[in-house]
């Protein structure tokens, strides 16, 4: 297969397969969770479920409890999550993809800014990996699954950076490899902890709801 | 490119800024010429210039004391810009389209000099001219050899 055929494939059938697996897998898991339902609580409600639930979705991001996680984890976590958000959603060529599929678009950031943020994100992700390997507790708790999730997340960042800067191979090959790495992420996504990107809304709401029902802080 | 103006394509001054770096390169080459006598040539074709930038560059370089016209395989224009030692050489084909443009930093562009091969051919032609002048019957003023 020539590099041009490779690019045509990843932009065509490759992307189709990946999006079908991603969407079907994700919705399957979400609905499986939703179908579990909740046991009816016969006690009288002492507060509002919904209000507490919704508030908790946001308040969990504020890390007010000092026992949550280390300063490093919190800071690094914020940096690479925001970095991922910016590089995926605020880069003009990516916005075009969302516009093509979902029909919505929004303004983009200059590519030099995206470029710098990509570098910062990649470095932070390596730092996060180092922390996982170095910290005895986290290392003990880590399974192959954790490393796989890390790998499929950092790969598009690295391949995207290389494609943008044209390092090593031809532009066609680099772009095709980048798109393929994204497809890998999409295919693996529903079967890993990466689904937290969507399930976090359910779990945070649920925690807030059960506390709110009992009239306590969540 | 003036021809594009009729299609409403505006030539912006902003954002591409290729003129300054080229002028710096010229300055550097001129200094080198003064210090060491080494010449330099910049091929304007190899640099992606936005519409209007090439003209801006040429306007900045301006005109100096020398303006020479060359007629070989179509016209060529060799001018010394207002900066001595900085020459602008533009080659046109027989249809007056530009086929090459160079900035030469030199005391005299090579193409202005008389070329040895041409001079040898000219010597030959001159000798033939003198011979034909001496023979009255074949007083043919048109020399058979062109340069």
């Amino acid at each position, binding site marked *: 297969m020539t590099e041009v055929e490779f690019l045509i494939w990843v932009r065509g059938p490759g*992307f189709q397969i990946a999006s079908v697996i991603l*969407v079907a897998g994700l919705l399957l898991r979400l609905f499986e969770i939703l179908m579990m339902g909740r046991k009816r609580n016969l006690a009288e409600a002492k507060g509002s479920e919904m209000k507490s639930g919704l508030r908790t979705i946001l308040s969990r991001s504020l890390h007010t409890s000092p026992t949550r996680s280390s300063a490093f984890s919190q800071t690094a976590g914020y940096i690479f999550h925001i970095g991922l958000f910016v590089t995926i959603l605020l880069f003009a060529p990516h916005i075009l993809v969302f516009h093509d599929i979902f029909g919505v678009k929004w303004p983009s950031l200059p590519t030099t800014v995206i470029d710098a943020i990509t570098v910062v994100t990649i470095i932070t992700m390596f730092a996060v990996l180092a922390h996982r390997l170095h910290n005895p507790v986290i290392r003990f708790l880590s399974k192959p699954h954790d490393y796989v999730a890390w790998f499929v997340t950092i790969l598009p960042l690295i391949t995207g950076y290389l494609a943008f800067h*044209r390092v090593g191979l031809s532009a066609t090959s680099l772009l095709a490899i980048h798109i393929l790495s994204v497809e890998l992420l999409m295919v693996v996504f529903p079967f890993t902890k990466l689904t937290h990107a969507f399930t976090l809304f359910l779990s945070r709401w649920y925690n807030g709801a059960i506390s709110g029902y009992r009239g306590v802080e969540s | *490119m003036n021809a594009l103006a009729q299609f409403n394509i505006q030539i912006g001054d902003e954002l591409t800024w290729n003129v300054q770096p080229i002028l710096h390169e010229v300055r550097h080459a001129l200094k080198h010429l003064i210090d060491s006598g080494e010449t330099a040539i910049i091929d304007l074709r190899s640099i992606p210039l936005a519409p209007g930038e090439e003209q801006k560059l040429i306007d900045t370089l301006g005109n100096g004391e020398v303006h020479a016209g060359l007629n070989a395989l179509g016209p060529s224009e060799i001018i010394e810009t207002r900066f001595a030692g900085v020459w602008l050489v533009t080659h046109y084909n027989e249809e007056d389209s530009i086929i090459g443009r160079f900035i030469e930093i030199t005391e005299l562009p090579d193409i202005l000099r008389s070329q040895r091969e041409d001079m040898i051919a000219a010597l030959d032609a001159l000798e033939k001219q003198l011979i034909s002048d001496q023979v009255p019957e074949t007083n043919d003023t048109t020399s058979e050899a062109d340069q």
Partner: protein
Amino acid sequence: MTTDSSHKDMTLGEALRSQGISRRGFLKFCATTASMMALSPAMIPKIAQALEQARRPSVIWLSFQECTGCTESLTRSYSATIESLIFNTISLDYHHTLQAAAGSHAEAARKAAMEENYGKYLMVVDGSIPLGNPGYSTIAGISNVDMLMETAKGAAAVIAVGTCASYGGIPHAKPNPTGAVSVSDLIHDKPIINVPGCPPIPVVITGVLTQYLTFGVLPELDDLGRPKAFFGQAIHDRCYRRPFYDKGLFAESFDDEGAKKGWCLYKLGCKGPTTYNACATTKWNNGTSFPIESGHPCLGCSQPDFWDGGGFYKALSIPTEDITRDIIYASAAGIAAGVAIGVMNKTKKTSANKKHQKTTIDDLEK
């Protein structure tokens, strides 16, 4: 088209001089040639020296399943001086579109040129070669594939001009009804230079010929068989609109404000980032302009399969198929499966509950 045989023995320098071109003219030719070949001006004296001594090769030009755009590109005499010079200095012994002879005379001329210059002539091909049915494209009753294979036998090198000859071009686009293939698909024992483009820039065609004449060897080629001197850079790398791309300033549609200001055409489907050609520096019509400068996104015409690359107006980052439709189906399937599994889980739980037997103290003491 064929010049008389006495000229064939002259070196290129002698041939030019015999046409009345002065040394100054020759220097001008070398300077503009160096510029066209994207060589440093410091190379001009070397080029002059090399061309002075070069021999004039015989060239046999075969036109197959093509639109003749490549020949037109070459002979549209905008840059009459350079192109006609090249034409006059090579010995174009066969070109069935340009030559006066036709039919059996033309074929006889081709055979004669092949015999006379066996092992030394350059074979230039434009157009793809149909294999589906050799009768789809014939010249003087000879199928393209037969003529190609026969003529290639004594060629020193092959130059495939245009995307059709280099990669199959438009006939090769889906569904390829004629079974079109490229020159490289058929010839494996001769050096091939691909000069793609739809059409290629005229000075690139002649530049490759000149390069061959100057250096006597084939130029350095990239992975797709293209001379690096002309195809070594992507359009994107030399595009003057690059600062707009970097700043995130794009034209959203044709003739909008951004387009009028000359902003980047990425969103309109420009294939500049993945296309390798000399358009951004050498430009067209003697440096007048090139598609992007005139407001149209690059088609990617010097790349293989550019016709099937997802559409000229679809940006490079966008998937080529209808993903929205696929996602709708996938959503339906995912939700259905999730609900079904959920129901199964519930049923399993209910039946497990039903089957649940209370444990008494007696069971434990057993």
